[in-house]
């Protein structure tokens, strides 16, 4: 039972790597095979994987993770402005600075648990957001957002030619597919680390904290450093995601820190399945995919889709569905979210598990009743 586990992990990694790198191939038939959208999948995938390392493993619900996303973005843009357009230093600095923020915010917030922890993280996020908009304008450029300009020093790059330079990795421009592949590699790395943590004694201890923290203390563990480590790692993932946003589009605004942005990553994680390895990725993918499709849709497009219906019915159907697409995409999202929390707290992954158990049940019940019974008991 142990050997296959270890082997399985490498198989999982291999399949995952191939799947991510070939994404342009298998995403094209569903209309998502273009770099802009695939980058989003990868970036929010990283964000959600990181969030899951905190929420999924320890059960601590942070409502302030957008801060680290924002810090990552600002740091990356500053790195582009001051040092070089090379993305590597930008990514590294972003992860580190997000980590520093996470140490401070985590150290204070983790003195409390439950709702109080959530509210503390929310309060820190709101403070950061408000400050980024007001007194920190010299650092954040306030409402306009931090952008590249022609007179940025960029000390490592030397003088540039005409126009704003674009982000690059040792000369390879980070636009189009290059940008996607850079994000994809980061996603694979991020997933690998997450997988290792899930399978490690450290990960098991985090799960045990989620299950019964008091018992952990009497078992001889100092739970706070464990929680803080998980918090910081998870903050660094958010920093990485934030920096990748700046890599693909060198601009950073305070709205990235708003608490609704924190809410979005919570949503992704729950929708996919908190505490599962793949859940957050599914959640991020599903939300970004449908956001792309639904928000681009309008009544004209809906009329085309429902053209096969009789006219009067078509109009009714379009009028109703019209509320849920385009501007109304958030309504769909909110409903979807409620439905998942109410009926399927385990998220999509739990849904798949139940569905496959159900299908198995059908096949077994026709053959061997005893087996079906024992499966039910479990």
């Amino acid at each position, binding site marked *: 039972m142990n050997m296959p*586990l270890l082997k399985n992990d490498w198989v999982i990694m291999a399949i995952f790597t191939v799947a991510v790198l070939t994404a342009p191939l298998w995403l094209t038939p569903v209309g998502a095979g273009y770099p802009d959208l695939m980058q989003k999948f990868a970036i929010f995938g990283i964000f959600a994987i990181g969030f899951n390392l905190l929420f999924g493993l320890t059960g601590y619900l942070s409502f302030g993770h957008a801060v680290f996303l924002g810090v990552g973005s600002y740091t990356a843009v500053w790195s582009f402005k001051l040092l070089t357009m090379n993305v590597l230093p930008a990514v590294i600095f972003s992860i580190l600075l997000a980590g520093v923020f996470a140490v401070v915010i985590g150290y204070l917030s983790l003195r409390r648990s439950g709702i109080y922890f959530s509210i503390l993280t929310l309060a820190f996020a709101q403070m950061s957001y408000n400050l980024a908009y007001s007194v920190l304008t010299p650092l954040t450029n306030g409402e306009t957002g931090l952008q590249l300009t022609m007179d940025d020093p960029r000390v490592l790059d030397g003088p540039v030619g005409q126009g704003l330079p674009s982000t690059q990795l040792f000369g390879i421009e980070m636009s189009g597919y290059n940008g996607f592949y850079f994000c994809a590699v980061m996603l694979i790395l991020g997933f690998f680390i997450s997988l290792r943590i899930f399978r490690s004694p450290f990960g098991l201890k985090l799960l045990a904290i989620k299950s019964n923290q008091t018992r*952990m203390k009497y078992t001889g*563990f100092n739970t706070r450093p464990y929680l803080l480590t998980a918090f910081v790692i998870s903050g660094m993932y958010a920093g990485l995601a934030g920096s990748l946003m700046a890599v693909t589009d060198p601009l950073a605004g305070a709205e990235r820190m708003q608490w609704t942005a924190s809410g979005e990553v919570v949503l992704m994680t729950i929708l996919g399945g908190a505490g599962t390895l793949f859940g957050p990725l599914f959640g991020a993918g599903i939300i970004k995919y449908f956001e792309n499709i639904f928000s681009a849709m309008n009544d004209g497009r809906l009329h085309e889709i429902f053209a096969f219906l009789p006219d009067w019915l078509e109009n009714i159907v379009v009028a109703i569905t019209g509320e849920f697409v385009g501007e109304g995409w958030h309504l769909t999202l909110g409903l979807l979210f409620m439905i998942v929390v109410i009926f399927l707290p385990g998220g999509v992954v739990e849904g798949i598990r139940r569905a496959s158990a159900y299908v198995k049940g059908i096949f077994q019940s026709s053959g061997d009743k005893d087996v079906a019974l024992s499966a039910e008991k479990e």
Partner: protein
Amino acid sequence: MSIVLSIKNVDKTFGGLHALGDINLDIEEGKTHAIIGPNGAGKSTLLNCCIGRLIPDSGTVEFEGKNMIGMQPHEINHAGMVRVFQTPEIFPDLTVLQNVMIPALARRDGTFKFNAFVSLASEKAIEADAVHILEDMGLGEHIHKHAGSMSRGDKRRLELAMGLVQHPRLLLLDEPTAGMARHDTNRTIDLLKRIKERGMTKIIIEHDMHVVFSLADTISVLAQGRIIASGTPDEIRGNPKVQEAYLGGAEL
């Protein structure tokens, strides 16, 4: 024989209630010491003072010469004093095996260790240790079950396994057989007897006199927050004061 645990002049009041008054108790190495007494006598309070859940108003609790008062629960655990709870305190979301691997990891890793890049599957020694204890407890066939789905009796035995896997030098048992069926109780008694043969020091709080008299080397009787008698089982059995306080005069 050396003294493992020494409780000196411990006092504890809650509001106006004098829960513990001037408790003095020495536990000798390798002995099983039972604390008995009617409900509300202060038994659990005393245990909580030893384990760091409560801080006494005055007095000291010395474990192997070190004062434990004011120490964090995880520090007390690493000093070698482990408590098994009255209501099963387990990790309901983990498997039975994982439940026992956690304390085994605590013993090896200390209060904090960042081993995020080691595979759990490669922790053979930890796993073997856990499996061994679980088989000893008669839980061998349950090791991959969800701990939360087990019967209450099994949970209590799991808790015992979680305590034993840490090889504590002092084990505090809070009513280890409460809520168990008779045959489970007997099984637990046998088990505790075997540990005794290995020389582990134990404090047992127990209502079941059958359990107390089959296990204890020495007994202290607590009534209204005070120790009214201490001695061997025979001395306690014959002590009229104990009979008066504990059973209202009935024969023990």
